[in-house]
């Protein structure tokens, strides 16, 4: 699979938490090449299944979330400016004078407005209540095309940086989706150790709500959640970040299955897949927090890779890290090297 092309196609779709359908449909279309019974449920969760053909095979759930952070329209003022709230936790500091689209009855273009320095009392970073969307129409005109609850996204774009680095909106977690699709591509036609269930889940950013529903339905024995983690930047703490290009990050946490984490680490070593260990001494803040305790419970591990500028519209990822993650998933699910 061409990971770059898939990432471009996926990041061009909008899917702010709770309104993922545009992205969900695109993902479902890509998943259909690899899985059976692909469907999009009422919440926007996309699921599909691949049977290994063995009797009594265990089910391995591969999860990545389809939603991304964004804004939601909460009010239209008398001059037609829109007040907004957050879906998830976007970095509001990055929104001043951004070019945005309001996803109303049609796409409405606008600009993020805030009090200019000569009017605001200090130069503090704006909070969500300080910004509004300037759509250049009156309240009456706005009400015809925009409804309260419509989502707002930044008009960013897919940028190729040096080497294998890509910057785009919603890399969190469309790149995780890409890693799973690439793993399925590697596994195509190969024998599997598990029955695979794939879930591209909705509403992770608002509290792993989609995964909670889908995992209950799937009742997997084991699950791997693929999500993004923190990449090294000059202003970050090296202890809390990984270098881009350092490979897949294997999760260790009291909420994850130690056996699975160890097995994945051994497998990465054996298969020469670049990796680091990501230690989370509390919850993981990924979908595994919910998947592990959905229904009868499932053994879980996280596979992540580092991105820079998380929760902004210029999230930056190394394609090689997505590829390393895909290879490790494929080895775990299918034992490609042993086959």
């Amino acid at each position: 699979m061409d990971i770059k092309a898939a990432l471009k196609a996926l990041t061009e779709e909008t899917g702010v938490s709770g309104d993922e359908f545009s992205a969900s449909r695109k993902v479902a279309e890509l998943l259909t090449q690899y899985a059976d019974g692909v469907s999009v449920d009422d919440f926007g969760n996309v699921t599909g299944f691949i049977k290994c053909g063995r009797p009594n095979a265990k089910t391995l759930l591969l999860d990545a979330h389809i939603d991304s952070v964004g804004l939601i329209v909460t009010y239209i003022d008398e001059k037609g400016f829109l007040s907004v709230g957050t879906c998830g936790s976007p970095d509001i500091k990055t929104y001043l004078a951004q070019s945005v689209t309001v996803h109303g009855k049609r796409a409405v273009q606008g600009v993020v407005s805030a009090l200019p320095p000569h009017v605001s009392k200090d130069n503090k970073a704006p909070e969500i209540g300080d910004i509004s969307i300037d759509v250049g129409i009156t309240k009456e005109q706005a009400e015809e095309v925009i409804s309260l609850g419509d989502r707002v996204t930044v008009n960013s774009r897919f940028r190729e940086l040096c080497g294998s680095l890509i910057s785009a909106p919603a890399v969190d977690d469309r790149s995780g989706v890409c890693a799973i699709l690439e793993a399925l591509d590697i596994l195509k036609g190969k024998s599997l150790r598990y029955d695979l269930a794939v879930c591209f889940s909705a509403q992770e950013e608002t509290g792993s709500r989609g995964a909670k529903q889908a995992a209950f339905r799937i009742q997997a024995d084991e699950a791997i959640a693929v999500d993004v983690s923190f990449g090294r930047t000059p202003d970050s703490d090296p202890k809390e970040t990984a270098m881009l290009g350092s490979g897949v990050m294997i999760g260790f946490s009291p909420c994850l299955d130690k056996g699975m984490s160890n097995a994945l680490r051994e497998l990465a070593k054996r298969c020469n897949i670049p990796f680091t260990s990501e230690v989370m001494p509390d919850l993981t803040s990924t979908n595994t927090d919910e998947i592990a305790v959905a229904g009868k419970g499932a053994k879980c591990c996280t596979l992540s890779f580092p991105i820079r500028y998380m929760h902004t519209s210029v999230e930056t990822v190394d394609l090689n890290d997505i590829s390393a993650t895909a290879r490790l998933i494929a080895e775990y699910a299918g034992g490609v090297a042993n086959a």
Partner: protein
Amino acid sequence: MLERLKELCLLNGASGDEARVREFIRMNIRADKVFKDNLGNLIAFKKGRKSPKHKIMFAAHMDEVGFMITDADEDGFLSFGAVGGINPAVTLGRGVTLESGASGVIGTKAIHQQSSDERKKIPDFGDLYIDIGAAFREEAEQLAPRGSYAYFDADFFEFGDGFVKGKAIDDRAGCLVMMDLINDGPEYDAWYAFTVQEEVGTRGAKAAAFTVAPDIAVVLETTTACDVAGVSGARRVCELGKGAVVSFMDRSTVYDRGLYSLAFETAKANGIPVQTKTLVAGGNDSGAIHVSAGGVRTCAISVPCRYLHSPSCVIKMSDFEAVKALAELMLSAVGEL
């Protein structure tokens, strides 16, 4: 009109790097005399149907705000400074284009990893960096040598009820009005200075005004409008949709009272919407021009603009049309003085 404004705004030309804009303008004006001076100002003379008693000069600046690369670190991240007055907030989470054509982005560590103090504070340029994805210093320096420029990678579009959004509308809008004045066959002879380095202290205009030595100058600009949510009364400064802005005073100039009145009378007599600024703020090339040599009677006609010096300058095209119409009528009006 919109297409040509778009073309002009998408050209990258920060202070000191105006060549692309200058060449575009030079190729697209039909003047009687055109030359580039030592600083890079493009100065044109266009004969009209009549010769005025006084020497008249129009001025608009070609440069925009941007960034200059100051260093690269061992991991390939670029340090940079602002060229012109930019609020660092409008650079966060933005894409940039390097002079070499390489793409980059500006960000900070993730919101999750920021302390509560960091979340509340807009970083200074000294704390920010451009990420072009370079793996090490040499790779970064090759694509972005010290002293090279970077620009907002910003879209340009029409939206809402006749509004336009883009970078560098300040002051390509003024440049476009001057290009049209030249090409439309003006009533009076006049000089036209497309100036450099306005954003770093109206430096080009100093030299241009000396060279042309006008008696009367009309500066065509964009000016801050704060007619946004949460701002009322005088603090709105001026408003989009209310026409051309003629200022009586800003931070760099107390404008010629006679010309100020003449602009208002001319606009009113011809049904052109006109307004003034309700706050003494900002400044433009007038500051350099009106004190040039023995003094120059100066007025400024501006397009009101929201979010100046950001990748999303916003103007209303009806205001642009008003500025254009008033500029043409002002040439005739001052030609008769």
